[in-house]
């Protein structure tokens, strides 16, 4: 029993990270109809900013996190103007290639600036974790679960209860109609990129004490997060969260009870089954494009 709970806890913890990154994918997809393949690198950038502020400059942890997240918002806007905006009237493919190029540029840029040595970041909470029964609750995983939960609630309130949130939703549903209603579409897309960068950066900051900070840390997470967003229903916010959590749990249990070397395989096996049986995902609509 304690083993099952331990696995469930770890699975949900790692799943929360997939969920945060998957949310970033989905929000940008909804706003621009484009998959951002540099989404995982947003996490890497966020984690490196944290190393710069908290370790190299020695700022307090909370202050470093605040500055890093603010910097991520700015980074998202720059990313929008550098990578998406110039190609906004082009088809899907050039933009996707542009994001892949940005991903390579970001990884090698950080490599050139920071060197290939992986960095470590101390855990954020002052205690290593709590042992409940036979289950060890790692403080970092607890923090990840709490922050992801809070983000989900905040995001719901933001999109449903604020004017800005509603404008963003309108933009993602129908850009032409939104602009006829006087919503500044380009600005809304800029804000979406900023918010997605914040989500990705947050995931990177949260996961850094567990997985260390290296230039390719975002790649594996992003691949799983992308699978999670398809399982949940691509373009669906709830789906991204549920898909992320489910994927974390499935791969952890699959590894424990069937085979550790095939851990990554379980995630993609689930993806494969969904693509065959229910390609629109758990929460997705059958019609891919809204009218």
């Amino acid at each position, binding site marked *: 029993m304690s*083993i099952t709970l*331990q*696995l469930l806890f*770890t699975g949900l913890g*790692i799943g929360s990270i997939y969920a945060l990154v998957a949310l970033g994918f989905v929000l940008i997809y909804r706003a621009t109809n484009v998959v951002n393949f540099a989404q995982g690198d947003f996490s890497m950038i966020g984690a490196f900013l944290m190393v710069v502020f908290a370790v190299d400059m020695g700022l307090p942890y909370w202050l470093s996190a605040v500055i890093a997240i603010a910097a991520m918002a700015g980074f998202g806007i720059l990313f929008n103007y550098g990578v998406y905006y110039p190609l906004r009237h082009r088809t899907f493919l050039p933009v996707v290639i542009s994001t892949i190029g940005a991903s390579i540029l970001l990884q*090698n840029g950080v*490599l050139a600036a920071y*060197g*290939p*040595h*992986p960095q*470590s970041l101390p855990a954020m909470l002052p205690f*290593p*974790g709590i042992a409940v029964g036979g289950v*060890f609750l*790692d403080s970092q995983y607890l923090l990840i679960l709490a922050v992801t939960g809070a983000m989900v609630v905040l995001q719901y309130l933001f999109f449903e209860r604020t004017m800005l949130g509603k404008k963003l939703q309108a933009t993602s549903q129908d850009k032409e109609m939104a602009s006829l209603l006087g919503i500044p579409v380009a600005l809304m897309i800029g804000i979406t990129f900023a918010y997605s960068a914040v989500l990705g950066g947050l995931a990177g900051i949260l996961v850094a004490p*567990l*997985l*260390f900070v*290296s*230039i*390719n840390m975002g790649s*594996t*997470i992003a691949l799983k997060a992308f699978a999670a967003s398809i399982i949940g229903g691509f373009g669906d916010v709830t789906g991204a969260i549920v898909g992320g959590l489910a994927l974390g749990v499935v791969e*952890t249990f699959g*590894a*424990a009870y069937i085979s*550790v*070397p095939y*851990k*990554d395989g379980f995630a993609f096996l689930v993806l494969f089954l969904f693509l065959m049986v229910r390609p629109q995902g758990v929460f997705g609509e059958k019609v891919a494009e809204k009218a």
Partner: protein
Amino acid sequence: MTKYGLTALLLCGALTLAASQSIAAETLKIGVVAPVTGPAAESGRFQVNGAKLAAEEVNKAGGVLGKQLELVIEDDQTTNPGAVLAFSKLAGDSDIPAFIGSIRSTQVHAMAPDVIKTGKPMMIGGTDPKLTHMGNPWLFRFRPNDTYSARVIAEYGVNVLKRKKWAIVHSTDAFGTAGKNALADQLKALGAETVITQGYTNNSQDFTPVALAVKAAGAEILSSYVTFETDQGILAKQMRQLGVDLPWIGSTTISTTSALRLAGPALNGTWGVTDFAEKSSPASEAFSQKYMAAYNTKADVFSAWPYDAVTVLAKAINDAGSTDPEKIRAALMAISGFAGAEGTYDFDQNGDGLHGYNIVHNDNGTIVFERRIDFKD
């Protein structure tokens, strides 16, 4: 106009040819395949630094065959296709008589067929025993192979630490799988039992299932063949968190500078086998001091083997008095009792230069040399 253009072009061509010939006359090129980018870029930097340090010393001492040694470095991107591509670029340069290959067994395997086709010697650091036992006459190993690391791990764990029930955690790549197989065989030979074997894929984010399985298996000692430092760090932290406090002997990665920095106290008290230990011999100590002076970082195995490889290769080419591949090969085979940073080189008929390992202990974050175990065969 066209006529002048053509003349100018020919002139340019002739000049370039002359320039390249004059460079070829001054330097002797050695090709180096190293991970400059990708997951192993970390160790790639050590590899290049170690090789450069040796080349500088060789050049100060008069170079090779009266020429200055020049390292031509190609990035293998830490991938097999990258390694093959990097090697083919180097192999295409006929001025290069020999190569320094990868420390990753997987990548040496990928390049091995092309090395045979090229017919020139390659110094390697990969420790999969098969690499020098598959009839490829051109691979020369500058680290002891994994049968030795496995023999030393088993010898120390069973006969010194007196542990009979073993857990093995290993990467599923060529290095980890070969190490696991060799260790299981050695344990069987010494009458110990492997109670659990757990493989994982490189760049795993979570080792909870591995730790829980090891904990439940009732092992008395843990041994590991881990490829990447980040995996080593995460594995160590989670093992300790989930209450696996077994004595632990790991393959080389467990005592590297980066793994210690990443894992912190989670690796305290562990033993590691390492072909390179600072205090294991006067030659190792001298190399460590020179490396520290040059790069202001502690040397480790990733920099020690290419240092030895370049030094020994330069000596072999000088001994051979020629860049003819067969002659270099014969000169390498004749190397005997050469004290390098990694140990004393005696190449056997397979191309293995070293036949033993050091055991080191992690005393609260400081790596301390315990003993050297060498085998005659």
